[in-house]
């Protein structure tokens, strides 16, 4: 898989993450919602940075899907969705690390993987899911 393909996949995934955090925040208490809002902002920045990067490389910049198949009936579902979003993004950031020799892209991938692993751990801890951490985040 080329780094270009992974970058496009990452943009698609970041669109989904932004959508998911927008939906799941409504099911959380005030304190937890603050974390969700911070994550929402972080994913929006990543999304925008990916759009710029893809444009600079003259690659397609897919927009968000018209709808996403997510049901968030309660707090547990909201937290589970947040864990899923971060875990799946971690896989793609790790894919980017594996797909490039460009140090800047490597760094971006490593940072993305670290951020998603930290957020996934925070959500698991909030949800009372154990283990809170993973030995090899991003590895399928």
């Amino acid at each position, binding site marked *: 898989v080329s780094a270009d393909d992974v970058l496009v996949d990452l943009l698609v995934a970041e669109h989904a993450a932004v959508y998911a955090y927008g939906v799941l925040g409504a099911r959380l208490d005030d304190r937890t919602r603050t974390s969700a809002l911070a994550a929402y902002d972080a994913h929006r920045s990543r999304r925008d940075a990916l759009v710029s990067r893809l444009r600079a490389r003259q690659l397609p910049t897919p927009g968000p899907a018209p709808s996403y198949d997510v049901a968030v009936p309660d707090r547990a579902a909201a937290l589970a969705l947040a864990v899923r979003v971060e875990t799946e993004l*971690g896989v793609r*950031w*790790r894919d980017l*690390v*594996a*797909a*490039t*020799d460009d*140090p800047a892209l*490597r*760094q971006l*991938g*490593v*940072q993305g*993987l*670290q951020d*998603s*692993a*930290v957020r*996934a*751990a*925070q959500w698991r*801890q909030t949800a009372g899911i*154990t*283990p*809170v*951490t*993973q*030995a*090899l*985040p*991003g*590895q399928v």
Partner: protein
Amino acid sequence: VQGIWQAGPVQPTRRSVLVAGALGAVSACTSKPGAAPQPVPPDTALTATAVARETALLAAYDEVLAAVPALAARLAPVRAEHQAHLAALQGAPTIASPLPVRTGTSLQPAAALTRLAALERAAATAHAGAAVSASRRLAPLLASLAASESAHLVLL
């Protein structure tokens, strides 16, 4: 350009790293004048450094657990992940060794956790840096180690 070492084993063991180092030293002494020096295989060196780092982290956890057994429930899963890191670097199955026996040493739990957090943070930074210069084969593993160690801070 792919180095010749990249066709070798994915994750050299500590032993093979040491042997390779020794062989490198010998060939350096016996090479003909004017021959290009053998480059240090980056992945081999990066793996050896990562193994040393994980070994030191495991020792730090063992020291804390031996002194403060009350932290076992919190720290044992993290310690197990470092054992998994070590195994992944060495391309070997995870060896789950028993928790250390209690020693007479006493440590303040809060200070012990702060120290472990500092070690995890340093390891995450080092592994993240190594992931930038490693081969495509090793880099994802180092990136996962960095991510795992950053996430450990959530528990410390």
